[in-house]
């Protein structure tokens, strides 16, 4: 099935080439597709970027390990999250149009008039995005190996280079257009997997009842999720998702507010059934008596066992699409920040620097893949596991910058540092048990400290001005 993989990768390259030929060549055209994404395009690029390989393979793995609770935390949190398209996205889109912002740190730096804050936000975003991007290359290699028998390391390198080519060629436009193809592939693959597996197991009811009679505890939540943990996941998804730089930058690309509105409305309807399928497959696997060493392989094994070969290929391609659509957006958002937020682009030309940056990151990922393909470092695992917590901590500062004039610059910097410190302490097991996820506690610390310190900063500022008579 090597031909199928090659065909898919060539299709992505062609889309990248067309995007390069048809778009504007100025920075706004390259980094934001000229702020031209219409509703359907914005929806697909947002969803394909948001739903990574974890949705495709991880959900079923968690459901196989812990039961149905996985659906609730993922679907509810992700369904509530689009309210942020209004609270943060609409404002970011408007300000982006008025002031030319193209990245999230640019907005913070501009609205708060602070270069320190801009660089700090950029650093946090890069630190929690880059490791995620690096391990996706490894995942791509493993999928290509399962699909075509090609050496996994070679597959990882090829996929990374293909992403580098179409992203550097067509910028945001290429990333968005390929997301449409990848989104269609992953959504249809997931649907096919659900339908065929359910059919092979005698229908939804029979598959569910068989799993229930074997493992009734998988149909309860108390095994894995307390009420506190459930609430934590919902809160974390709402505040963390918009802080992923690859999602935030898409707010700027909307042609108009209709694009943001449609994306907001369609999200829950899509999630309601799309997130259910991998969870059902994971739970049903228990009813079949399937035993796997790595839970993330459950979806693949179930598809192999219960669907025709073409569905298996479609599902593997869907998994690859889920992975690549997130990875290309992450790559492009990191290179955009490196160009726009460090001012390197102004010296050498933004688009040219963007292309160079993209290839430098690609080279770094390839080196990482070659040296760490069969091993994982502790720090990388920590950063990936805590990327939601680490990024959620930025949200109070963004909300304050957009809605609260009293916000102090120093307070914003300190609130981020305090929140991230708590996340770091949780790594060492030095945080107390609260019944909630550490990420939510860190988010609360960050928000509370921002409010308290801003009042103090404001008071001290006025006191100083009164003393010295400054205006």
């Amino acid at each position, binding site marked *: 099935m090597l031909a199928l993989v090659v065909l898919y990768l060539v299709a992505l390259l062609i889309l990248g080439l067309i995007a390069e030929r048809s778009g504007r060549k100025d920075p706004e055209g390259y980094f934001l597709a000229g702020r031209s994404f219409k509703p359907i395009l914005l929806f697909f690029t947002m969803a394909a970027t948001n739903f990574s390989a974890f949705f495709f393979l991880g959900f079923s793995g968690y459901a196989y390990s812990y039961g*149905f609770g996985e*659906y*609730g935390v993922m*679907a*509810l949190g992700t*369904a*509530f999250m*689009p*309210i942020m398209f*209004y609270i943060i996205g*609409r404002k970011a889109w408007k300000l982006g149009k008025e002031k030319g912002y193209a990245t999230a740190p640019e907005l913070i730096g501009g609205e708060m008039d602070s270069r320190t804050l801009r660089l700090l936000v950029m650093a946090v975003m890069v630190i929690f995005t880059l490791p995620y991007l690096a391990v996706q290359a490894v995942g791509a290699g493993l999928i290509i190996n399962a699909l075509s028998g090609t050496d996994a390391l070679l597959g990882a390198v090829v996929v990374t280079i293909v992403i580098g080519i179409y992203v550097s060629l067509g910028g945001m436009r290429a990333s968005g257009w390929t997301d449409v193809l990848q989104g269609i592939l992953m959504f249809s693959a997931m649907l096919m997997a659900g339908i065929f597996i359910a059919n092979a197991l005698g*229908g*939804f*009811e*029979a*598959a*569910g*009842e068989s*799993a*229930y009679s074997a493992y*009734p505890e998988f*149909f*309860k*939540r*108390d095994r894995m999720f307390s*009420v506190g943990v*459930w*609430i934590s996941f*919902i809160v974390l998804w709402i505040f963390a998702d918009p802080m992923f730089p690859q999602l935030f930058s898409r707010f700027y690309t909307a042609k*108009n*507010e*209709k694009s943001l*509105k449609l994306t*907001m*409305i*369609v*999200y*829950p*309807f899509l*999630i*309601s*059934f799309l997130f*259910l399928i991998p969870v*059902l497959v994971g739970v049903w696997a228990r009813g079949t008596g399937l035993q796997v060493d790595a839970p993330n392989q459950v979806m693949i094994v179930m598809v192999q066992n219960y669907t025709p070969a073409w569905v298996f290929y479609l599902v593997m391609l869907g998994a690859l699409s889920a992975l690549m659509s997130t990875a290309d957006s992450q790559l492009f958002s990191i290179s955009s920040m490196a160009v726009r937020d460090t001012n390197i682009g102004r010296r050498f030309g933004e688009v040219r620097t963007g292309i160079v940056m993209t290839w430098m990151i690609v080279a770094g990922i390839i080196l990482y893949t070659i040296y760490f393909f069969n091993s994982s470092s502790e720090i990388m695992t920590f950063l990936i596991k805590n990327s939601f917590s680490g990024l959620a901590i930025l949200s109070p500062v963004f909300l304050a910058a957009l809605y609260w004039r009293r916000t102090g610059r120093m307070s914003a910097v300190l609130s981020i540092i305090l929140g991230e410190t708590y996340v770091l302490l949780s790594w060492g097991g030095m945080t107390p048990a609260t019944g909630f996820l550490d990420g939510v506690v860190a988010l609360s610390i960050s928000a509370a400290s921002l409010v308290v310190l801003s009042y103090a900063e404001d008071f001290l500022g006025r006191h100083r001005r009164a003393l010295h008579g400054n205006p």
Partner: protein
Amino acid sequence: MAELSEKRKRIVFAAGFLILLILSVDFWNWNSSKPLIMGMPFWVVWDIVIVLLIGVYYILFCRYLWRD
């Protein structure tokens, strides 16, 4: 809805969002697994309904509160 003042609309929609948030933490179903509906525990069906209600909430939100 159309004739409500902007401030009242905001209050209504904020209250609606809060109610959906509360309903999404169905602690009263927490330790139950029966009855099974289409092979799923009742509370999963409840979650699906809440997710769909959030979609309906966004339709109303975009129609009555989010003006271009």
